[in-house]
C-alpha cells in the first residue's frame, strides 16, 4: 500500500530509511531528531529527497531515478501538522471546505456532516481558529485533511502540543478514524503510550535509519529494541477481551491467551476487545505458584531469552502460552533465582499496575494477535 525508500542528507544529518506497510495505522516512532518528520515530509512531497522512491496504492509519487516528483497538491496525501496550521482568516467551516474544493470531483464528499459528526466539531463551524482550544484545533485540522479525500493521511505528532486532558479527548477520534474512515494513516510520535494504543504497524526510527518494522505487539515485545522504545515505559502488548465485571471489588476480568487478568474496573461492555500494555517494570517473577500474595494476576510461562548486561538491570522475555511478556529485574534477582532460558516460571503483575496509560483503547487488536481473539 505504502512503500518508502528515502535517502536525504540535511547538513550533518543523514536520513536513510526504507519501509513498506499495509493500511491501518503505521506509527513512525523514535526520539526527536530521529528523522520522523523529514520522512513524512518526503512522503507528502514537502521535501524532495536526494534519492528515493515513494509509492502509494501503486502510484509512484517520487522516483529520483526516473525523475518523477509529484508536487504536494497532486499527491492527495492529507497532512495533519503538529501545530494544526489552520488558516486564521477563515472560519472553521471554510477551513474544512478548503481541501474539498480542490479534491477530484468524482471522489468528492457530498456532505461534510459525517466527518463533522465523527470529530464532534459541529458547534464550532462558525468560529475562527483563534477562538478554539488546542484540542478543537487539532480535530478541525484532522477534518480538513480528511475532507480533501486523501488516499493517505499523515499526522505529525498531532498530540504533542496538547496537555494530558486534551490528548485523552482526541485519542478516541483518531481510533475512530483508523477503524471507520478507511484511510490508511502514517502517524509520527515519540510517545510510546500513543503508539501502542493506536498503531497496527510500527516503524522504529533511530538516527535516520529504520531500526525495526513490524506489528506493534511484536515490536514492543522485542527486548533488543528497549533502548529505542524507551526502557521506563516499555512493555509487551497483550490482546485481551473483557470477560466479566466484579461489582463487589470494582474489578474487571480480562481474558487473554496467556491467562486471566484482574484490573481496576473498566467502563466498557463485556466482550470488548482491548489491547493492554504490560510494562516490563511491573512484572515480577516467581519460581513456584505464589501463595499469600496480594497481587491478583499470576501467569504461568517459560523464560525464552535473558538479555544480560553489566548494569544492575536485566530484561527477559517470557512465553505465556504463545503470548510474549517482558520483565525487568535486577541482575541480583536473576542470579539468586538462577533464571535461565527454558525455565518454567510465574509472572506476577499487580492489578494496580494497570493504570489508564496501559490500556490501548477499544480498537481492533494488533494484527499479530488477530488469531487469538477470533478463537474466543
Amino acid at each position, binding site marked *: 500500500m505504502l512503500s518508502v525508500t528515502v535517502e536525504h542528507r540535511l547538513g550533518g544529518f543523514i536520513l536513510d530509511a526504507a519501509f513498506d506497510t499495509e493500511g491501518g495505522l503505521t506509527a513512525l516512532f523514535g526520539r526527536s531528531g530521529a528523522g520522523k518528520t523529514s520522512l513524512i515530509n518526503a512522503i507528502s*512531497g514537502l521535501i524532495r529527497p536526494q534519492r528515493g522512491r515513494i509509492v502509494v496504492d501503486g502510484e509512484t509519487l517520487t522516483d529520483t531515478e526516473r525523475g518523477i516528483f509529484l508536487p504536494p*497538491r497532486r499527491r492527495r496525501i492529507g497532512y495533519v501538522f503538529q501545530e494544526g*496550521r489552520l488558516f486564521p482568516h477563515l472560519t472553521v467551516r471554510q477551513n474544512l471546505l*478548503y481541501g474539498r474544493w*480542490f479534491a477530484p470531483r468524482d471522489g468528492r464528499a457530498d456532505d461534510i456532516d459525517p466527518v463533522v459528526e465523527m470529530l464532534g466539531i459541529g458547534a464550532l463551524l462558525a468560529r475562527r*481558529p*483563534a*477562538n478554539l482550544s488546542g484540542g478543537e484545533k487539532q480535530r478541525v485540522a484532522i477534518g480538513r485533511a480528511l475532507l480533501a479525500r486523501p488516499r493517505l493521511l499523515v499526522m505529525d505528532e498531532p498530540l504533542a502540543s496538547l496537555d494530558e486532558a486534551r490528548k485523552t479527548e482526541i485519542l478516541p477520534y483518531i481510533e475512530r478514524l483508523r477503524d471507520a474512515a478507511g484511510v490508511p494513516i502514517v502517524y509520527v510520535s515519540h510517545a510510546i503510550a500513543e503508539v501502542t494504543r493506536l498503531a497496527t504497524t510500527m516503524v522504529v526510527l533511530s538516527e535516520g535509519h529504520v531500526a525495526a518494522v513490524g506489528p506493534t505487539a511484536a515490536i514492543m515485545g522485542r527486548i533488543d529494541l528497549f533502548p529505542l522504545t524507551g526502557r521506563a515505559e516499555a512493555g509487551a502488548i497483550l490482546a485481551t477481551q473483557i470477560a466479566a465485571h466484579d461489582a463487589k471489588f470494582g474489578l474487571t476480568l480480562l481474558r487473554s491467551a496467556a491467562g486471566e487478568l484482574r484490573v481496576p474496573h473498566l467502563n466498557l461492555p463485556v466482550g470488548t476487545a482491548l489491547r493492554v500494555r504490560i510494562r516490563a517494570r511491573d512484572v515480577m517473577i516467581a519460581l513456584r505458584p505464589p501463595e499469600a500474595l496480594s497481587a491478583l494476576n499470576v501467569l504461568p510461562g517459560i523464560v525464552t531469552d535473558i538479555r544480560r548486561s553489566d548494569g544492575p538491570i536485566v530484561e527477559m522475555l517470557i512465553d505465556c502460552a504463545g503470548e510474549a511478556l517482558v520483565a525487568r529485574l535486577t541482575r541480583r534477582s536473576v542470579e539468586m533465582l538462577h533464571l535461565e532460558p527454558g525455565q518454567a516460571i510465574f509472572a506476577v503483575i499487580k492489578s494496580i499496575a494497570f493504570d489508564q496509560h496501559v490500556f490501548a483503547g477499544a480498537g481492533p487488536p494488533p494484527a499479530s494477535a488477530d488469531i487469538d481473539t477470533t478463537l474466543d
Partner: protein
Amino acid sequence: MNQLFTFSPEEVTAIRLSLRVAFWAMLCSLPVGVGIALLLARGRFWGKSLLNVFVHLPLILPPVVTGYVLLLLFGRQGPIGKVLAETLGIVFAFRWTGAALACAVMGFPLMVRSIRLSLDAVDRRLEDAAGTLGANRFWIFTTITLPLILPGILAGMILSFARAFGEFGATITFVSNIPGETQTLPTAIYTFTQVPGGDIGALRLTLVAVAIATTALFASEGMIERATRRVVGL
C-alpha cells in the same frame, strides 16, 4: 470669514486634479508594487539587492532629481516617452498623466516596503498546508497569502496616496505647473504664495490638504484594523 470658504474655479480644479492624480498613481502602482514586493520577499535571483536599491531610490534622491530623470526618460524626446507616444499615443510630458506618473514613482518605495514587510510576516507553513490540500500556486496566493497581507496592502495604498497627494518637487520638474492640466494642490499653493494677495487662497488650499490627509489617515486606520482582526481571526 466667508471669503475663506469661497473657492475659485481654479482652486476647485487643483483640488480635483490632485485627488485624481493621487488616486490613479496609487491604483496603477498597486499591481506593480505587489509584484515587486513578492519578488523582493520571495525571489532568489542575481541582482536582488540592486533591484531593492533601485526601488528605494525615489525615497533618498532629491525629488527634483527624480523629476528630471523622468523628464529625460519620458519627455517627448526621451527614449521611453518617444516610443510610447509614437506607438501607443500615450504622452506624459506636461499632462496630468505625467503628474500621476511622477507621484506614483515617488510613492512606490513606501508601497513596496509596506507590502514586503507584511509578506515577510506571513507564516509560509500555512502555504505548505494549502499545498497539501490540493491548491496550486495561484490559489495559494489568492486564498491564503493575499488575504493575510491585506493589512499591509491597505497601509501601502494609503501611504502611496498620501505621498502622491503631497508630491511637489518631482511633479513640478517633470510636468511643470499648468493650471487645469498639471497644477495640483501643492503646486497651486506654491503659486499663491508667489503672487501678491494670494495668502487667502494658499490658506484655503492648506486647510483642504489637512482635511483630506486626516480623513485618509482615519479611514485607513479603521480599514487596517478591521483587516488585521480578520487575519488574526478575532
